[in-house]
C-alpha cells in the first residue's frame, strides 16, 4: 500500500480528533501503518529498548499506557478516538472490547486468538499477535492497538516488547492468514463497528455521531 502515516503526524491527528470529540465531534477509528518507529509508554523501562536505541529507527516517548513496542510496515495500527462515556466509562472494559475486536477479526482468518490474563493484548498459542495501549483524556480514549500482519517481525528482535521478557511475537501471515494489511482492514473495521455497536459509520475515519450519553 502506498505510503504510511508518520507516527508524529498520527499523534497530531489524534490530538485534533480528541479535541473535536470534546466539542461534540464523532468517535473516529483511524486505521493505518507507520514507517518503522519504536515507542515507549510513559512508564516504559528504556532498557527494554535494547540495542534499538542506537539504531536508525526513531524512538518516541508517548502518553499511552504500556511499555516498549515497535511499529512498522506490515502492521495494522488502529487508533480509535472513542468517548468512553457512551461505552460505560470503564477503561478495563474498553481494553477487553478492543481485544474482542481483534480476536473476532482473527477468527475470520481461521486464527484462534485469545486473551492472557494480566497481559493486555492478543495472543496466539502463547505468542503475541497484537499489542494494546491507550490513553484517556476526559473520558475520551485515544491511542489503541497494533496488529502484526506481515511476516517480517525483525523490528521486534532487538527490544523487549511490552516489557515482558522472552515474549515471542507472531503475525497474521505467520498464523496462516493474509499478509496484506489492506485485506485485514475491512475485517477489523466491521468487527469494530459491530462490537462497539455503532449505527452509522462513514469509514474508518469518521463518523458515528455518538449520542454522547450522560450515563
Amino acid at each position: 500500500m502506498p505510503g504510511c502515516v508518520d507516527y508524529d503526524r498520527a499523534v497530531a491527528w489524534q490530538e485534533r480528533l480528541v479535541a473535536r470529540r470534546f466539542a461534540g465531534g464523532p468517535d473516529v477509528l483511524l486505521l493505518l501503518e507507520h514507517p518503522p518507529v519504536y515507542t515507549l509508554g510513559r512508564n516504559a523501562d528504556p532498557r527494554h529498548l535494547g540495542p534499538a536505541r542506537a539504531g536508525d529507527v526513531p524512538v518516541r516517548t508517548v502518553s499511552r499506557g504500556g511499555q516498549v513496542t515497535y511499529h512498522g510496515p506490515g502492521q495494522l495500527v488502529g487508533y480509535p478516538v472513542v468517548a468512553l462515556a457512551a461505552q460505560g466509562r470503564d477503561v478495563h472494559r474498553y481494553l477487553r472490547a478492543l481485544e474482542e475486536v481483534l480476536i473476532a477479526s482473527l477468527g475470520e482468518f481461521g486464527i484462534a486468538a485469545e486473551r492472557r490474563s494480566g497481559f493486555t493484548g492478543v495472543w496466539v498459542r502463547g505468542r503475541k499477535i497484537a499489542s494494546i495501549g491507550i490513553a484517556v483524556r476526559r473520558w475520551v480514549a485515544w491511542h489503541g492497538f497494533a496488529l502484526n500482519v506481515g511476516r517480517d517481525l525483525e523490528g521486534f528482535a532487538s527490544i523487549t516488547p511490552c516489557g515482558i521478557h522472552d515474549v515471542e511475537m507472531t503475525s497474521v501471515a505467520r498464523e496462516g492468514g493474509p499478509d496484506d494489511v489492506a485485506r485485514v482492514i475491512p475485517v477489523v473495521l466491521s468487527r469494530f463497528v459491530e462490537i462497539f455497536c455503532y449505527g452509522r459509520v462513514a469509514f474508518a475515519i469518521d463518523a458515528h455521531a455518538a449520542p454522547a450519553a450522560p450515563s
Partner: protein
Amino acid sequence: MPDVTMPKLSDTMEEGKILRWLKQPGEKVAIGDVLAEVETDKANMELEAYDEGVLSEVRLKEGESAPVGAVIAVLLPAEKGKGTARPAAAADDRRKPEPAVAAKPAPRPAEPAPRAAEAASGTARGEGRPEGARESWRPTVVGRAPAEKDDAEHVKASPRARRLAREHEVDLASLAGTGPGGRIVEKDIESAIAARGTAPKKEKEPASAPEAPRRGERRMELSRLRRTTAKRMGESKREVPHFYVSADIRMDDAVRLKEALAGLGGEFEGITFTHLVLKAVGVALTRVPEANASYDGDAMLLHDRVNVGLATSVEQGLIVPVVHDCDRQPLGTIVQQARAVVERARAGRFESDDLSGGTFTVSNLGMYPVSQFAAVINPPQAAILAVGAIREVPVVDGERVMPGRMMTVTLSCDHRIIDGVIAGRFLAELRGLLQRPLALVV
C-alpha cells in the same frame, strides 16, 4: 477543602499508579488542569482538577500506587477573586458536593458549552508538548496565501488598498502583500494594476491584417496561451487516434471519506474529489503502467514517475499544472500540492516544474451538471481521464433498489500505444480504489 482521590477508571480497577505529576505542590491549579497521569493496566488517564486552588500536598510519588478512592493530593482554595477565569460550564462543576466531585469522572461531552470545554482542554494539557507542536506538522505554508474567494474578507489589507482594489477590480486574495506580516498595501494594488496593464499588451502581437469583423460579430484576439492550446489540441485530434472508454463508479464511500477528511482539517483542509481522483489515478497507474506512457515514434516510453496534470481553466485559456508523484505522495500532501499548484497557475506565478513532467492528465467537470464527457489527449501523453459530476442515482443491490452516488469517468486513449484491454484494466483499478477509498489515505 477538596481532596483529590484516585479516580475509578473501571469497575474492575482496584488501584492506580501515578505515572507523573504535572503539577507540583505550591502550584496554582485551575479547573480542567491536568494534575497527573494515572495508569491502570495499559491505559493512561489524565487526571484533571475539578476544583481550583493551590496544590498543597501530594501524597503519592511518581510510580507509586494507591487504591481507588484514596486521597492522593490536597488542593487548598485559591484567593477569592483571583481564581482563574473559567467558562461557565466549568463553574457548574464547582458547585457539586466536594467529595463526590473529586471522585467523579470528567465532565461529559454532552454537558453544556462544549466549546468552552474544548478551549479549556487546549490550555489544560500540560503534556510537555511544546506549544505550537500541533501546528508544526502542517505543510509549511504551501501556497497558503491566496485562497478561495470568500477569503477576500480575511485577507490582510489596508483600507486604502481595499478601496483601490475594489475600484480596479483586483482580487485581493490573489496578491501576496509586501506590508508588515504580509499585509497588502496600496503599493501592491498599484503594481497589480500595472502588471495587468502590461500583460494583455504583450499578447497583442502585431495581428497580421485581421479581417474586418462582419456585422453582428466581435473579433477577440486569442491570448498566447489560447493559441498554444488551439494548436496543440488541433494536432492532437488530427494526429492521435483517440478512442474512449467509460466506467461508472460508486462514490458513496468516497463522499463520506471526503467529508470526514475535510473535518479532520490540517493537511486535508480544502480537500476535493479531484484530490481523491488524483491519488487514485496515481495508484492505478502504478498497477497499469502501460497507461502511464507516451508515444515516441517507433517506441513507447513508460514513465517511472507518475505525475498527473490537472486541466485547469484560467482567464486566458487552459493550462495543466502538474502534481508530481501522485502514486507515492500521501493524500494530504497531494491535497496541499494540488491546491498550491493550481493557485499558482491561476495567479500566473508558476514555479519551475509546475507545468512540466506530466505523464497523464485529469480533467474534472464535476462541479458542473456534466454527467460525462470525453477529453482530448494532451500529447505526448497516452491518455486523459474526463471526470463527470457525482449524481444521485438508483442502484440495484441484490433484489433491492436503493439510492446511491455515481460518478462516470471516461478515459481517452491514444490507440497507437494503448488498447481497450489496458483501458479496461486501468478503469477497473481506478474503480476499485475509489469504491474502497480507505487505501488512498493510508
